[in-house]
């Protein structure tokens, strides 16, 4: 049922001129409140798919529609005329955080309000007390409120990614698309960012579609996983069934890249001594 779905994509294709299509008849539906992992080797079309949902890229002319909630983001290779406003409904978290480094954390988070406030106020940079309070609340929920008046460029990668999540929260987006949000982070920050995404999904009912490079994170945080290979959906089902055998069947030799470092990272995450040490280091820093 497309009407009740948080996200529905119907036969979306994209070719960037090359004979191999970047996306090939991708069909995907997400129920409200779901948290789904999107996995695949590099070049499998994960980013391209997410960028289509936000209307950054247009699909091929014959493609079906991309619907977020009740809004049609694009259809038949044409993005909606009011796409700029529609993007407010979709929170986007980027691999490289995409914050404005010279502005404060506060201003970066307040940007999530831009579509809701009158143009004259946004152009003068005037935000009301209530809007600041909402931004502050979002920062607190991801644990960066102490950094509010620092320039975003002075933050660590993990902190910057949390600012980006706070920005999406202030947008009041009902769905958050996260494009490899942990690929540029150290294991501890990666775990932290995934925990936050899982928590806002659980507590606020925000639908989350997160693309991941490493399968063990999908298994850990998402009950459902969608796997892409060369722009095609090759698996859509419970993450628990994605064991090494299944992955080898789906990806063949390319699987090594996706399982790379699994043992090490799992060991680090599961070792209580290591976790305690990291927590102590974070507290003293």
């Amino acid at each position, binding site marked *: 049922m497309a009407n009740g779905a948080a996200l529905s994509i119907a036969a979306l294709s994209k070719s960037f001129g090359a004979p191999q299509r970047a996306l090939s008849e991708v069909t995907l539906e997400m129920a409200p409140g779901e948290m789904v992992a999107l996995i695949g080797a590099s070049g499998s079309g994960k980013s391209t798919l997410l960028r289509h949902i936000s209307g950054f890229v247009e699909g091929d002319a014959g493609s079906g529609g991309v619907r977020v909630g009740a809004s049609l983001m694009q259809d038949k290779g044409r993005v909606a005329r009011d796409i*700029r406003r529609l993007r407010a409904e979709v929170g986007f978290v980027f691999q490289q955080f*995409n914050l404005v480094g010279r502005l404060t954390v506060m201003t970066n988070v307040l940007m999530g309000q831009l*579509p809701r406030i009158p143009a004259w106020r946004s152009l003068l940079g005037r935000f009301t007390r209530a809007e600041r309070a909402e931004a502050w609340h979002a920062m607190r929920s991801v644990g960066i409120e102490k950094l509010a008046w620092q320039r975003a460029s002075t933050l660590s990668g993990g902190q910057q990614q949390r600012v980006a999540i706070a920005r999406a929260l202030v947008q009041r987006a009902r769905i958050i698309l996260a494009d490899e949000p942990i690929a540029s982070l150290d294991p501890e920050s990666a775990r932290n960012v995934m925990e936050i995404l899982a928590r806002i999904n659980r507590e606020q009912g925000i639908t989350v579609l997160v693309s991941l490079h490493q399968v063990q994170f999908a298994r850990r945080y998402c009950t459902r996983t969608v796997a892409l290979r060369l722009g095609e959906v090759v698996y859509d089902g419970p993450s628990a069934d994605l064991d090494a055998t299944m992955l080898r069947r789906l990806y063949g030799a390319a699987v090594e890249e996706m399982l790379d470092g699994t043992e090490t990272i799992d060991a680090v995450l599961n070792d209580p001594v290591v976790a305690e040490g990291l927590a102590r280091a974070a507290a003293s820093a």
Partner: protein
Amino acid sequence: MTAATTIPEGALAPPGGPKRTLAQALGWAAFALVLAWAWKGADMRPLDLWKDSGNMRIFLAEFFPPDFREWRSYLREMVVTLHIAVWGTVLAVICAVPFGLLSSSNIVPVWVYQPVRRLMDACRAINEMVFAMLFIVAVGLGPFAGVMALWIHTTGTLAKLFSEAVEAIDPRPVEGVRATGASALEEILYGVIPQVMPLWISYSLYRFESNVRSASVVGMVGAGGIGVILYEVIRGFEYAQTCAVMLIIITFVSTIDLVSARFRKLFI
């Protein structure tokens, strides 16, 4: 040439090497030809400097000691010159922001930035002096003609510098702003401007420096300020006074250069 053809193939130097030397030699020869050709056109007579050195010495001696009796009026006009530079620069900065954005290839489509760039080229191509002479006809003798002249010329220069800064930005923060559902204008204000601000400020200060220099020259065609006095004393063969005026200009321009350079360092 014949020597080159008799060398066996295996003994040839690596490709590219000798050819480049030949091209270099040709380049230098062409440069020498241009210099020789321009010698006549520029009416170069270096020997006259030596031959008429006696006259030169008398001429220079007339500059000293400088005659500061009219220093009040010199200072007053020097301050007017600064006023011309301030207004010419401020108006130009205000105009260069939209024109700079409109000539950036990463902000607007080609059918916008190409015509705007050509318009800015035109503003920049014509010297302030020429603009000043034209505006004297339009708005009359006086400082306002100088302001207009600096304004137009500086808008052309700053718009180009501003747009080069805009074209060098990191596109990712801009995409981050776009993802929040911001309008195109908000995207520029929150994503682009913060990134280019330090460079824009630095360029504007630099142009203010050069406009103080230019403002003292546009006066010579009647557009107000110290240039008017300079022109009058030179035409009146009052070399001691000319020297005083020049010393005042040098002092002001050097001071402003130093202060502004110190200030610009804060923004880079």
